[in-house]
């Protein structure tokens, strides 16, 4: 396999794991649980 493929795969796995450990999914995606007024078109 291409070396670049493995480097990218490792990098993005690391980023995903780091983001999860920092709690990004919990607190930032909390925004997505609510309605986004911009998406609806309300100022």
């Amino acid at each position, binding site marked *: 396999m291409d070396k670049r493929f493995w480097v990218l*795969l490792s990098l993005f796995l690391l980023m995903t794991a780091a983001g999860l450990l920092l709690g990004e999914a919990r607190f930032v995606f909390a925004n997505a649980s609510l309605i986004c007024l911009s998406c609806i078109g309300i100022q």
Partner: protein
Amino acid sequence: MAFFARFTDALARLRRAPVQLTSTLLWNSYFLAPWLKNVPCPGFNCYSCPLAITACPIGTLQHFIIIRRVPLYLLGVLGLIGTLFGRTACGWTCPFGFLQDLLYKVPLPKWRVSNRWAPARYVIFALLVVIIPFIALEPWFCKLCPAGALEAGLPMIALQADLRELTGLLFAVKMVILALFLLWMMVTSRPFCRFVCPLGTIYGPFNRLSGMRLHFEESRCQHCDLCRHVCPTGLYPPEEIDTAGCIRCMECLKACPHGALQSCATGTSCTERSHA
């Protein structure tokens, strides 16, 4: 890795519409798993849609920019999808892509638009997803997004009477943009994917780096141009297969009667698709 060649070959044998329909229903089945809103959707699907099960990656990216945080988790997940499959999600699992494929079937005179305008999506990405949200602290792509207008604006206004009183100029602008795009989708194949989509803009460069690859075998090509006629993004596959504009729908692989277009895995030899 043989997995990618086999996976591509399996995709090339599948009919795309049932997969797209299943994906669209899956990403919009909130009653099944509302906790998945913590996961970015691989395709373009508004998270304010009352039925959306996952988060819109572009909306999320803008919110991270607004709160001045590097979105490690989001970029990690999008990077993983891109590294493994390139833009395959665009061709197979994106609900907005599926809508475009359906609308293009409307029997109207067709308008072929040159891909010379495709770089516009990089400008739109830079301005509306990154620069303006960073400065204005508001998700300006979401404010103008036609997918949001269709999946969130219309149903939410229909379902919640109190929201109706809050609509104004922005809502009107959003509806006009939606109407223009719906009309455009009826006459031009996949215009949003080709000229606007910020998610496709992120996935695009991965086509040349991903595990899953497509390959053109020049010695087999009979220059019949069948592949050009079936490409939904208006590419010329012999020269542009696997470029950033390719959504890996596999229509060219299916159409080529000579096996000139093949599935492949990065770093390995290509596997010729068998043709009945």
